[in-house]
């Protein structure tokens, strides 16, 4: 709770212009502990609870726990009402400050947020939580976007967004970095949410069994496979499994010894090249090769020594 509150007060302080430009130029207490920032902080906490309740209600339905879903539904409705009230209060407070919420984009976003909030309430009332998740997220996002639209072009008192911004080369580099980052991050997030929201990472009772796992070699062979018989047979099967595992380990030991020669050679080569290049040369490209050599030696020696002897 403390985190969204603190962030909300910081945002609120910026929004009402209590953060002056300069090194520690603002008041350390009243910048953020005054009515408007505290209100925004409370709003942030309410939003967090609101989103959590709606999403958890949807999760409860997926889990099949009706009582839990009902509990979260109540909380979602309550949090929705509280968030709406606080947002309206915030609007009133902000109107009397420097933030201009009545102009085009800001007004539109505020209306979108209000509509989404009402839609979420209606959907939660009728227990349609899947869709309610989307409208709740939209409501909160619209508030944040509305703040940004209303704040621009002013950033701090005496400083516009354009003045605060870094130079073009930095911004370009950042946009490229963000795009590349999102290209990696968004599919990962999709994967994560798919796994969680479809229940793949739930407790085993609700998980669907996956496709046949890679069958590792060296496991118990035939006799142990259909061990639905009496104790003696399963004991024999277990002993066969153990022997099979032992034979498997012996086979791996032989394989390991076969690998030892080439690995040792790779290690020696890597070490010699790496040490020689890094210590005695100065050009960057030789250093790259040197590091590669050291890494080769490291991997080779690790492969030789990481597993217990005979494994």
């Amino acid at each position, binding site marked *: 709770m403390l985190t969204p509150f603190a962030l909300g007060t910081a945002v609120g302080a910026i929004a009402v212009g209590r953060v002056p430009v300069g090194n520690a130029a603002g008041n350390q207490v009243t910048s953020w502990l005054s009515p408007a920032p505290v209100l925004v902080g409370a709003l942030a906490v309410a939003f967090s609870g609101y989103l959590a309740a709606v999403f958890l209600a949807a999760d409860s339905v997926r889990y099949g726990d009706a009582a839990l879903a009902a509990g979260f539904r109540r909380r979602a409705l309550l949090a929705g009402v509280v968030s709406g009230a606080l947002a309206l209060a915030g609007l009133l407070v902000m109107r009397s400050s420097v933030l201009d919420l009545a102009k085009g984009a800001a007004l539109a976003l505020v209306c979108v947020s209000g509509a989404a909030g009402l839609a979420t309430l209606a959907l939660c009332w009728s227990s349609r939580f899947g869709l309610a998740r989307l409208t709740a997220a939209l409501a909160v996002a619209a508030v944040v976007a509305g703040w940004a639209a209303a704040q621009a072009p002013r950033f701090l008192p005496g400083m516009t967004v354009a003045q605060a911004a870094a130079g073009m080369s930095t911004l370009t580099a950042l946009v490229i970095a963000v795009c590349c980052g999102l290209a990696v991050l968004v599919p990962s997030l999709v994967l994560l949410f798919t796994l969680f929201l479809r229940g793949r990472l739930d407790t085993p009772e609700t998980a669907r*069994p996956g496709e046949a796992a890679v069958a590792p*070699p060296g496991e118990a062979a035939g006799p142990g496979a259909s061990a*639905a018989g009496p104790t003696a047979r399963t004991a024999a099967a277990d002993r066969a499994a153990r022997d099979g595992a032992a034979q498997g380990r012996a086979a791996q030991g032989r394989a390991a010894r076969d690998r030892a020669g080439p690995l040792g050679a790779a290690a020696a080569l890597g070490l010699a090249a790496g040490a020689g290049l890094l210590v005695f040369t100065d050009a960057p490209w030789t250093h790259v090769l040197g590091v590669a050599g050291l890494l080769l030696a490291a991997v080779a020696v690790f492969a030789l*020594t990481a597993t217990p002897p005979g494994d």
Partner: protein
Amino acid sequence: MDVNQHYLFEARQMQALSLAVHIPLVCFGIAFPVLVLFAEWRYLRTGDQLYRTLARRWSRIMLALFAVGVVTGTILSFELGLLWPVWMQDFGNVFGLGFTLEGFSFFLEAIFIGIYAYGWDRLPARAHFLAGIPVAVAGVAGSLFVISVNGWMNHPSGFTLVDGRAADVRPWSALFANPMFWSEYVHMYFAAYIVCGFLLAGAYAWALLRGRRGRYERTALGISLAAGSVAAPLQVIVGDWAARDVATYQPVKLAAMEGLATTTRGAAEHLLGWYNGHAVVWGVEIPRLLSLLAFHNPDATVTGLDIVPLADQPPVNVVRFAFQAMVGIGTLLALLGLVYLYLRLRKRGLPRLVLWAVVAAGPLSVVALIAGWITTEVGRQPWIVYDVMRVSQAVTGASDIPVGYGTLSAVYLALAVIVFLILRRLAGIPLPAEAIDPPGPQGSQAGANDGLRSRRLHARRDGGVHGAGRRRLRRGAVDAAHRRAAADRRARRAPGAGPGQARDGAGLGGQPRLADLRARGVLDGLPGRVRLDHLDPRGAAADRRDRDHLPRCGLRAARGRGHLAANLAGG
């Protein structure tokens, strides 16, 4: 415009504390995923359940340390802006790109570490292994981006100074075309394996010294000690390369590291001793060695501290002591690594002395790590951007830094206690059946004089029948026939092992079962409503699956015990 910050020293110490707490965790973020994936790869290659258990237990530790690293890393990143706002203001446009990239790397790591740690029984084996690879990649990438910023601070470039601000900024080249950066990064990369490897190895060496000589401990020791022992000798080479870069690009830092007061041709190396402002006294002097090491020429001229006024010099004794501590410990670790590799390649056992050395090597490697960072950070003083901006120019004007410092210290203390408790609890989760040596010719590792273990071993030696069935039960995908077999077995309550054969838990927390905690006397004084049928040691995860069937399990357990008795009697 310099603010007059009374608490500049406290601000520095606050930043140093945050760094010192965060960096060891970063080492685990870099190296640990690789070790965990190695263990899981061995499982996939060999089918040996031990490696799966090892990877699984390690992945829990990895997740816990990652979570703590998130806390300390967030604090650290906020501090960079809160404590040094002028630095952020004037040069954030140059190095900010590094933190942007690191942010994405961090998110990636968080996503996949969650999928990996929670997905053990719930994803197909190969998919689970692949889910771990982004964790390892992100660990490497994140540290690379952060160190690129530190490298820039030591050797700034990629901008033009106009009125004290950075103009004509070239962020990519500022961070990545820095000739000093790569040696610093590779040095940190190997250091991560040293710290992670020796700390882990120390824990298992301790276990071996206490008599827990099972296959699990020996395998875990083998992997972690191999990692540390490979990295430590190679680090000597990388360290030499990094030091030569410092000699070239930060001569004053090198002079402070060596206590070289005046620019000298054919400079000598002084081991130990004390710098009194003019020279190193009471040290061991090796003539011409410094010139030889720094420039590969025993007659080279090494720059001394005298090229800058006293106000621009770092505190020499701090830097010197830290540097020599790092090199000294690093050399010892390299020797230990070579000794271990020799013993391992010759397939000799490890004498107790070596095991004790490994136990000591864990904390010592952290000391070396911090000493190295002290060397480079304090050695850069008084500059926050070398030769461009001073720390005193960058600091905040806020007046209550001591409050922040005190709060931070309290928070870190609490965090340390929490981490200790979490790790101790994770270590206390009993090993599953397959992780202990199976009885028979392979498994007479009964050097175990830990009472509980040997009781378990003896019990298994006569009766264990569930090894094969349990193994199949355990695998993520179970086809219908196996499911039936498993259900039959559960119904029969086949006689099995003695107490404590816990399955490592279905959930992430892996709650130790009441049976095991009871056996160790931990849970005396439980409220009376605790279900006593949980004390049946043969419950395993099947109990957790069929909670509604539990009362009947108690009865079946009694019948099962009868089976065991019959087995033992009948042979």
